[in-house]
């Protein structure tokens, strides 16, 4: 399975990439929404995108809206991973088309649980 990790913090990209690689994902990353769209435009379509909210150039919410407007990208599951954590912000992201929402700070277990809910987790996972 493939995942696209979108976050302007390279530390966060390394951490999320490390977690997903541990679950058997092939991972690419992007430092903002625009760079992520470039990856999709290349034809590299992931099963999962993890998306930060506050980023330069194009933020996560704009990215979600653009992806939602393109039927060719409908199969991609979009999971926000962000420190934006108000009730209203989560509602906005879901309304824009995000499927799931992980609040920073998170643990690897939290990512695993969400992937299990989404049916995007391989069976055997070591602690």
């Amino acid at each position: 399975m493939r995942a696209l990790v979108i976050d302007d913090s390279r530390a966060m990209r390394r951490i999320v990439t490390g977690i997903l690689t541990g679950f058997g994902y092939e991972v690419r990353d992007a430092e903002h929404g625009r760079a992520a769209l470039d990856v999709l435009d290349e034809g590299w379509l992931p099963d999962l995108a993890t998306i930060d909210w506050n980023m330069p150039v194009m933020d996560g919410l704009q990215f979600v809206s653009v992806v939602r407007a393109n039927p060719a990208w409908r199969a991609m599951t979009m999971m926000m991973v962000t420190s934006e954590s108000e009730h209203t912000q989560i509602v906005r992201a879901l309304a824009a088309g995000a499927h799931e929402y992980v609040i920073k700070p998170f643990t690897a277990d939290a990512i695993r649980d969400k992937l299990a809910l989404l049916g995007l987790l391989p069976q055997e996972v070591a602690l």
Partner: protein
Amino acid sequence: MTTTDTGERRRASDTRPVITDLIDEATVESIAAEAWVALVGEDEVLVPLPGDLPADILSSWVDVVGPWTGSVVLTTGRATAEELSRALLREHAPEVLDDEDVADAFGEIANVVGGNVKAALPGPSALSLPQVGNAPLVRNQADVCRLDVLWRGEPVAISVQGALPPLPGSTPTRKNEVS
């Protein structure tokens, strides 16, 4: 057209909130504790004790703009910021951490703490991207909620501080009076 100044309008604008009316140290402490346990490591505790910051310090912060406007600032020794960045990255850390790696990781911790502080405040508010360097000045001593902790024995200060100077006529020593 004339209006009669009953004083209500002025009183309404005088009620601009200061941070201590909106959040307490215990909430900031629980936000920071969760961030440390989840991001830095599951046995990383913050001990709520003050310590002397070294001469060479680094701050990272995010700005919150909304009904309350200000910054959420982390300040610690440069060496501690580096250690914190390494702990955050764990096995994903490169051999050598350059300044940009430290700025990025330390900034991300401010983003996580700041985002959760913002969510505990009345909204709607916007969050800036993290910045790293010399902390913004404290403009109003009464509009600060500061938490001093030790992490691995090293002092870390977490300050939620307003961006606006005190209102004319407000008592600047308000905080000292209660303590």
